[in-house]
């Protein structure tokens, strides 16, 4: 990199292949990185509000974004994720890149009216995404 720094500024920039800092930036800071997104819905939108009494609103959240080629501790991804990247790039492009998916969930309490008119309070596992990962 010393050479690039010492280039006189008034000269045209080096072609991209030689601009290492730009090249490495795509590893460190993906433009649309994998992250958690809110998605608030109400059961009336699904026409389920005649039997789901609570919660009034439900935010299941979802994961979306790019996974960097060199995933590391930042996403808590297993080593296999890196191997899958290598298979996609070097061996078989039909093998997809790792995806941005939920890694952790939290439960949801639901109050429902049963078909026989009884009322049930239940707690369901894994109903709200709380963390994303690349794998």
């Amino acid at each position, binding site marked *: 990199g010393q050479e690039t720094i010492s280039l006189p500024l008034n000269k045209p920039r080096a072609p991209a292949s030689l601009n290492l800092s730009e090249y490495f930036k795509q590893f460190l800071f993906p433009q649309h990185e994998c992250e958690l997104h809110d998605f608030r819905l109400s059961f009336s939108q*699904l*026409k*389920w509000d*005649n*039997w*789901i*009494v*609570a*919660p*009034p*609103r*439900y*935010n299941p959240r979802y994961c979306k974004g790019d996974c960097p080629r060199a995933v590391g501790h930042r996403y808590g991804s297993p080593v296999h994720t890196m191997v899958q990247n290598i298979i996609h790039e070097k061996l078989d492009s039909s093998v997809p890149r790792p995806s941005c998916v939920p890694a952790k969930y*939290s*439960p*949801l*309490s*639901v*109050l*429902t*009216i*049963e*078909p*026989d*008119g*009884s*009322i*049930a*309070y*239940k*707690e*369901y*596992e894994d109903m*709200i995404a709380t963390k994303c990962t690349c794998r």
Partner: protein
Amino acid sequence: SQASRGEPQIAAGAELESEAEPWSLLRPLDGRDRSGFLSPLFKVLYDGQGGTPRLQPDSRALHYMKRLYKAYATKEGIPKSNRSPLYNTVRLFTSCAQHKQAPGDQATGSVPSVDLLFNLDRVTAVENLLKSVLLYTFSNSISFPSAVKCVCNLVIKEPESSSRTPHRALSSFTFNLQFELKKKYTWFEVDVTTLLQPLVASNKKSIHMSVNFTCTRDQGQDPSAQDRPFNVTLQVPPSLLLYLNDTSAQAYHGWCSLHYKRRPSRSADQNRGLSVCPQGEGSAEGVRSPRHRR
């Protein structure tokens, strides 16, 4: 080939889009419910689709359960950590048959005996009963004398085998209740866990019982209570509240995994043979002894 694989998916997709109702996404594409294909959660959701007629619950019962929900879950619907960790399901049943047998007597405070029939079809085999309560709710808050002493007589009957044979009392229990009711009470609970445990555990689909109260003022505590008439509206038939632990994989067992992470040794409950944790990851995690931080 790529093209051949693509077609059926598009066709299925087209079929899905043509059915505007989102809940149809939960139905298997070929419409048949292969056993085990729909997990209990999706079956509940699928059963809940708008088309099937639904009996409306008692408004007082719904009001009670909404308060319970607020006590147990945050605004976002996440279970609170300060609720009792043992159960993850609470079901409230209203009686589907109420016959009054003997008239009550206001002067002595005896309440007409009420015949109750609870239909427990919705309790599934994986829901273990932990506690059952008879819940009396009052449509408007009533003012009791500060201290009331009641004797409750509860008779559990055999389900009706034929309309001609009289109900045979399976067992009859009498227990004393003594409680003090503050002003503006709108409900109180009578714990009947030990009475109903064997019935629910044996997967009985309906429970038939008759309940009556005889309440008297507790002279010693509140001498001034004599001059006020003792008006009781207990003849409102109680609901049945069951606190259950759902051991299925879909149910939340938060305390279970926490419990195991912190103390891998078996808990007293498990020594008693209560299976409160699903045989799943949670318990497997408990096998590894945590490494202590040096």
